[in-house]
């Protein structure tokens, strides 16, 4: 009993990226979004691992959806998710030790992430494997870009520099981009210019950045809605005017 018909695969992929973005529109998964966005790379790494957990748990849940009795489906989902989180933890500990230590306990907390559990309940438990896979990818990418953006904002404003290649250190030395803070030092040992605001590295800064991002998203949505409404209204009025004109013409002809 698949709810999605053919030709709607694209929609189940694209929905999660912008229209129903898990962080910015559905406002889920706030804890990791606030905690791991001190820098772009940890945020991006978290997004990648999150996407892997989401996609694999979605696929397994939708494969098992006819086997799991309705009554105990939530416990089953929890066990499936916990298994994949354990796998991801071991993978990160072995191959990305820097990322593992900077994410800390938040990697384990993926088990109780509202998005993963919510997608299993709301989508993968009722839809086919391919759609669930696409849904997982879409939501994962949506979440990843949202927290990466947050990571960029917090790192640039808070530290003044943007570091690339420190956590994913496969390419030699990390690249440090001086944006608000110079990397060259003057004769006193101070940076040439420094406009960074360190509060953005603190928890308070995380709350502010996320709050403003959500507000921006809400403002865009509201604006779109208002434009659509105005268009509809204009179309209705035009139709009315046309009708009136026709009636007037008909009246005149009489």
């Amino acid at each position, binding site marked *: 009993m698949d709810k999605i018909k053919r030709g709607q695969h694209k929609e189940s992929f694209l929905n999660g990226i912008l229209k129903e973005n898990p962080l910015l529109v559905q406002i889920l998964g706030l804890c990791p979004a606030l905690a791991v966005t001190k820098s772009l790379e940890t945020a991006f790494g978290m997004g990648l691992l999150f996407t892997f957990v989401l996609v694999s748990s979605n696929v397994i849940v939708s494969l098992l959806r006819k086997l799991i009795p309705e009554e105990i489906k939530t416990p089953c989902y929890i066990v499936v998710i916990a298994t994949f989180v354990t796998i991801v933890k071991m993978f990160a500990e072995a191959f990305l030790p820097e990322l593992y230590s900077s994410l800390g306990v938040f990697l384990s907390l993926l088990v109780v992430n509202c998005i993963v559990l919510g997608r299993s309940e709301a989508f993968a438990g009722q839809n086919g494997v391919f759609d669930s896979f696409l849904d997982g990818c879409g939501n994962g990418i949506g979440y990843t870009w949202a927290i990466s953006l947050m990571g960029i904002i917090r790192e640039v404003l808070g530290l003044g520099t943007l570091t690339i290649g420190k956590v994913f250190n496969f390419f030699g030395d990390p690249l440090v981009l001086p944006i608000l803070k110079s990397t060259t030092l003057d004769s006193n040992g101070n940076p040439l210019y420094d406009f960074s605001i360190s509060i953005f590295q603190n*928890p308070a800064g995380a709350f502010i950045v996320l*709050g403003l991002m959500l*507000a*921006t998203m809400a403002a865009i949505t509201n604006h779109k809605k208002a434009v659509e409404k105005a268009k509809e209204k204009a179309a209705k009025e035009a139709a009315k005017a046309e009708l009136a004109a026709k009636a007037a013409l008909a009246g005149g002809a009489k």
Partner: protein
Amino acid sequence: MEMIVSFILAIVSYMLIDNVVLSRFYGICSFIGVGNKVKSAFSMGLAVTFVIMMATLVCYPLYFYVLVPAGIPFLDTLVYILVIASLVQIVGLFIKKTSPSLYKTLGIYLPLITTNCAVLGVVQTNSDSQLDFLTSLANGLGTSIGFLVVIVLFACMRERMNGYNIPKAMKGVPIALIVAALMAMAFMGFGGMVG
């Protein structure tokens, strides 16, 4: 005597300096989701306190006396989530059977406790940083009291914000996050209180 002092200091530091919500970011979902009723915030906080303490008590021996000797400490997350989820179900069952009035205020928040990161966060930190039993207890107690205090304060503030004229886009979660940011700044003042 020294032990008691360090125990109390650990509680205070987990409660105020490393506050669960405002600096460790556990349990934001319930923090934002519980809305602006002080009474329900209080009962939610109490329920979370109870579950955190029980989970700490159960998970500590499970990790150090069952998983570690068996050589499978990596299965800790799976075990913890099973313990926490069963605890929440048992507590819920108890409330359902015995106290309708408590069920009325708490009933709809019960599923939120399982997915509250604070519970799993505390238990996981205890085993990740290999804390001893007393510090684990202090962590649990401090975290849950900190959660209770912050969630009640936050509900009070949001109750007062009810009639204010907030820009349309800021309504709801965004303004709540900004309020939380101000609270976090206030709590930063506790930093350095315990050496």
